[in-house]
């Protein structure tokens, strides 16, 4: 398997000698074909659940419990989507979720890009030590701080508001701080030096020079945080108890318990997943780079 990618055809000289060019190409072609076949199988395994989700969302209710596999529903019930949007308070939950997402995205990108400047573009004693703490918070299980955070927000009267779900975002997110820092470290120090000679202070350098250059990371952090807030479950579960304030995730979960209409629920599932997939394809490259970074440098 590895054979093919490393090797743009540098196999052992013995093989070349024995079989000549023709044999070599045939061998290589065979390997590519085998790999392609394996990859198609893997891709299918990963795609089939998606296909099933879409198929279920378009089935007539009577076919949900059918015990034969039918990929293309007959008839195709587009009306499941229309019904799901009206019978389930979709618009309200959608709006609630979006409000939270907007604040989380603004808070997390603004604060993380700001904090990362201090961890990369200024040299000060204790900086590296504190940065280790940043990384430490990344692997701290949320359950460890969940209860006291709840008690804290409760004493502030924040339970059943969006504040516990949005305000913490404004204090920097460890993973995004890491991403921004990684990016800032790659920017030449001459940029700052030149600005400083022109009488610019660090706040000005951050705002006028570093931030405009960071668009790819800003986009990545914005989308990561959007997806995080969009899909968040445990936060809204703990903090929201008024049905009018529910997010999509909690709204769906509440319905599951009440013998729901499964085809409509699957339709909502499709609608909840779609915006994220679309966003993903917009920034796929930076997105994947962001995750890769964390592995190599972490």
């Amino acid at each position: 398997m590895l054979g093919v990618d490393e090797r743009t055809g540098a196999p052992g000289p013995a093989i070349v000698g024995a079989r000549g060019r023709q044999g070599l190409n045939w061998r290589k072609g065979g390997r590519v074909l085998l790999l392609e076949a394996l990859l198609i199988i893997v891709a299918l395994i990963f795609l089939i659940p998606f296909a099933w989700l879409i198929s279920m969302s378009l089935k007539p209710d009577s076919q949900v419990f059918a015990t034969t596999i039918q990929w293309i529903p007959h008839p195709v019930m587009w009306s499941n989507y229309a019904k799901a949007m009206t019978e389930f308070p979709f618009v309200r939950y959608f709006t609630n979720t979006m409000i939270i997402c907007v604040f989380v995205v603004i808070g997390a990108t603004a604060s993380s890009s700001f904090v990362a400047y201090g961890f990369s573009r200024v040299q000060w004693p204790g900086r590296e030590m504190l940065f280790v703490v940043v990384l430490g918070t990344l692997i701290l299980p949320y359950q460890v701080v969940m209860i006291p955070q709840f008690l804290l927000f409760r004493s502030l009267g924040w339970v059943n508001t969006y504040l516990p779900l949005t305000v913490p975002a404004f204090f920097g997110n460890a993973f995004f701080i890491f991403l921004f820092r990684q990016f800032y470290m790659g920017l030449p120090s001459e940029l700052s030096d030149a600005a400083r000679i022109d009488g610019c202070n660090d706040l000005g350098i951050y705002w006028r020079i570093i931030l405009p250059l960071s668009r790819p990371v800003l986009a990545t952090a914005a989308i990561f945080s959007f997806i995080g807030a969009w899909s968040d479950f445990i936060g809204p579960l703990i903090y929201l108890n008024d049905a009018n304030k529910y997010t999509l995730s909690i709204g769906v979960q509440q319905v599951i318990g009440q013998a729901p209409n499964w085809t409509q629920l699957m339709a909502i599932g499709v609608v909840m997943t779609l915006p994220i997939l679309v966003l993903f394809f917009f920034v796929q490259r930076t997105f994947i780079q962001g995750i890769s970074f964390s592995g190599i440098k972490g």
Partner: protein
Amino acid sequence: MPRMGAMEWRNLRVGLFFVSPWLVGLVIFYLYPIASSLYYSFTDYNVLQPPTFTGWSNYQQIFNDANFWTALGNTAFMVFVGIPIYTVVDIAVAILLNAKVPGQAIYRAIVFMPTLIPVVVLSILWQWLLNPQSGLINELLAAVNINGPGWYASPEWAKPAFIVMTLWTTGNAVVIYLAGLQDVDRTLYEAADVDGANWWHKIRHVTLPSLSPVILFNVILAVIASFQFFTQAFIITNGGPMNATLYYSLYLYQNAFSYLHMGYASGLAWILLIIALALTVLILRSSARWVYYAGSR
């Protein structure tokens, strides 16, 4: 340490100014909560009345609590059975995705896609895929004359069901392995070719050792994720059948928010913190024996 000049002082002030939002957040959202949960773990606290100090009683109860041991065992199953499976499968998939074949970018995107599904949707979807009667997977098994198990409905198969489901969403780890594969020194493969190594030899003696730092990183993340495993179990099984999927975080949540045993749950949280720390340290310690760092690192 040498005395700091005016420049150093200025830099310290500027640096602290920029990191101050995070520092404030660290104190409010991490340090204070961790410290106060230690205090709560020594109290009886139901939120409605003020906490009363009870000494070690929560911890004594926890260690005599059969459900605590069940929850710990279920999570250990996720760690010791799940993580080896994820690791082998993820590396295999990453090696495949690293091959330069037509459509490579599409295959990569497809493997990553499941990590984007909101966890609630993921849970309903898998509840159906693994439905014993009309679920897709058992129907596919039936097509080849295998009588599929009860999955989430069966005490024996519920935990494996969660592992299968989690396996579908490990695209993050695959992407990290892929990045690691880019870093493997090409000349090592050329040397292996000269020595007449086959593909398995190359994986075993070149790829895996070169990838070991990344394996270490992913294993640590997976251990932490296993201890945080909550939403899927909360939605699909809520701990059942017969506590077979009562995972540690789920049990902690139930104590805190269903029974309002905040003191007891804080004790569980502290035990979680200590186990997670101990496991991380243990894995890092053991890494000296199996992680290979190339000279340049």
